[in-house]
């Protein structure tokens, strides 16, 4: 600490005034990174969100190539290949995933390997096994993941198109418009989503289109609240007033002046709405009003294979794991984003 030891003080020099130029070098300049650079930097600090990001990337990658590399079609029912346990090359040599499964029968436990029974079974590999109809589960799982990812995309688009716009308009114009818009949301919010979605699907017949619509109708309310609240806070600020006195139009103020400043909150909110939407789809499938067979979604796979839970447990594992991982990852990423961008924000 004591610098005198290193370089002896020259008493004459040291006790003289530095002079007027001393104060010139005052304010420290803090270099500011761009929004995205800061975002990446801060998110990278959070282990959870890195995990989320990587696993989402992996899942997306698998969803893209998975159905292509297995050698089976998602709706292809191979005769004789029903209910086969997972068998994976290389790993099978270690005594795991070699196609054997233990069946519980009335007389006790029985170990079987269907790959040894069927004709040409030596050359057959079903990495995740097959379902009771002989469809390859690896293909179906990743095919189903595509649906869930599509739903995630829908959720974000809906959030942005409907939720954000609704909230911003309601907050910006205020007064009677806001009042009417908010009362309507309150009424809509008073109906449990479960009811809205089931009723909708009954009228529209199950299918991807009606699921999309169901998410569109119910998914945006949270976002609209956040957008409105942020808008209310910002619209009175000086810089917006300045823009208005300069003659900026409402639309310009909303999208050019205010939107960039509430962007982080909206980003976080839309990330949080993704797991909700994915869950809604999986739930609908499980209840039996999801996408129709032979198409697959993670939810419908869980629902189908649930019937074989006690006989062929392996069937339900892949879709459950992927679904849980997907939702967990999106939540972790959203958490990380919130901590990085706006730690005080609460999600409801």
């Amino acid at each position, binding site marked *: 600490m004591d610098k005198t030891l290193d370089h002896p003080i020259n008493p004459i020099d040291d006790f003289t005034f530095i002079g007027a130029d001393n104060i010139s070098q005052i304010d420290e300049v803090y270099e500011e990174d761009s929004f995205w650079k800061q975002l990446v930097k801060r998110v990278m600090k959070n282990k959870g969100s890195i995990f989320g990001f990587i696993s989402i990337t992996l899942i997306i990658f698998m969803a893209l190539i998975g159905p292509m590399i297995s050698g089976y079609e998602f709706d292809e029912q191979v005769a004789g290949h029903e209910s086969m346990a997972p068998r994976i090359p290389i790993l099978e040599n270690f005594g795991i995933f070699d196609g054997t499964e233990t069946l519980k029968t009335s007389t006790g436990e029985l170990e079987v390997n269907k790959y040894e029974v069927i004709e040409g079974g030596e050359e057959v590999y079903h990495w995740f096994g097959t379902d009771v109809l002989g469809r390859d589960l690896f293909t179906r799982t990743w095919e189903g993941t595509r649906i869930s990812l599509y739903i995630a995309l829908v959720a974000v688009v809906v959030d942005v198109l409907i939720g954000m716009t609704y909230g911003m308009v309601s907050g910006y114009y205020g007064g009677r418009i806001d009042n009417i818009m908010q009362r309507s949301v309150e009424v809509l919010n008073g109906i449990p989503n479960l009811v809205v979605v089931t009723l909708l699907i009954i*009228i529209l017949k199950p299918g991807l289109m009606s699921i999309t619509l169901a998410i569109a109708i119910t998914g945006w309310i949270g976002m609209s609240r956040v957008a409105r609240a942020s808008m209310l806070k910002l619209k009175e600020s000086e810089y917006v007033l300045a823009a208005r006195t300069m003659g900026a139009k409402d639309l310009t103020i909303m999208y050019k002046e205010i939107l960039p400043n509430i962007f982080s909150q909206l980003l976080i909110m839309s990330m949080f709405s993704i797991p909700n939407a994915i869950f809604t789809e999986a739930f609908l499938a499980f209840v039996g009003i999801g996408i129709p067979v032979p198409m697959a979604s993670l939810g419908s796979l*869980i629902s189908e294979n649930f019937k074989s839970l006690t006989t062929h447990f392996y069937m*339900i594992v892949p879709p459950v794991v992927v679904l849980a991982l997907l939702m967990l990852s999106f939540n972790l990423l959203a958490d990380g984003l919130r901590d990085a961008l706006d730690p005080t924000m609460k999600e409801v």
Partner: protein
Amino acid sequence: MKKYVLKRVLMSVVTLMVIVLVLFTLMQLLPGSPFNDERLSIEQQQVLMTKYGLNDPIPVQFFRYVKNMLTGDFGKSYTISKDTDVSLLLQNRLPISLLLGGISIALGSVVGLFLGIAAALKHNSLLDSAATFLSVVGVSIPSYVFALGLSYYFGFQLGWFPMLYSVSDGLLAFALPAVALSMTVMATVARFTRTEMIEVLSSDYIQLVESKGVSGGHLIFKHALRNASISIITILGPLVVSLMTGSLVVEKIFSIPGIGQLMVQAIQSNDYNVILALAFVYSALYIFVMLGVDIMYGVLDPRIRLAKEDSNG
């Protein structure tokens, strides 16, 4: 407070009316009439239509519908159990679901509150990280995944708990489904409580309370939790919704004869009357809970409770 409650009640009634209107409209839109039976001739159908008032003007039918709904007359089931009054089906099943839901929400909130408070008090400790991780997992993983896991492991593999519901098991039959359902509640409550408590604990007024020399349970419960609870109870609404959806699936997995399972059956067999009745019941239940939350909000927060007296005088 009076005016506040009145406003909330009015809002609830309006919402309920909108729902009834929607349900009624759906009735009209749904394919086929209840008497689409091929064995009936057109004349016979007409007679039946007149008998049940289906040829009356729409507004008359609507008011009759509203009256029926409010008096618990939901018509008859078409397919699930032919010609049984839907209200009879509900009578047997509603208590089971309410019990299951009640247990889950009580279990989940108590554990969740405890976890959340502990995490907030030991902010940035190992306990905090563990609680946070647990709640992220709980929020992320749908309750039916828990249900499947519990059912397979504790029900099937270990055989500790009944895998399927049966009346003879009594409350034990609710063990696994209640735990599965309460996971989401627990996680959400823990997460929210933690955030709120951390915020409250760092507030100026807690510092003042501390500087008075008040500490321990008195500080945590009388001041911190009391203030945090104003925000915490707002998640009760979303929680009830997630419990409802969760119960549909969980009741199916454990074959619990509640309204959730009934809803799934009704959806799968297109039993419209049952679906509409359940939609009404679910909505009414939800609206009732939301009303309760709003009123509790007023009770807990003197700023709302006393708002009226101030402006009056």
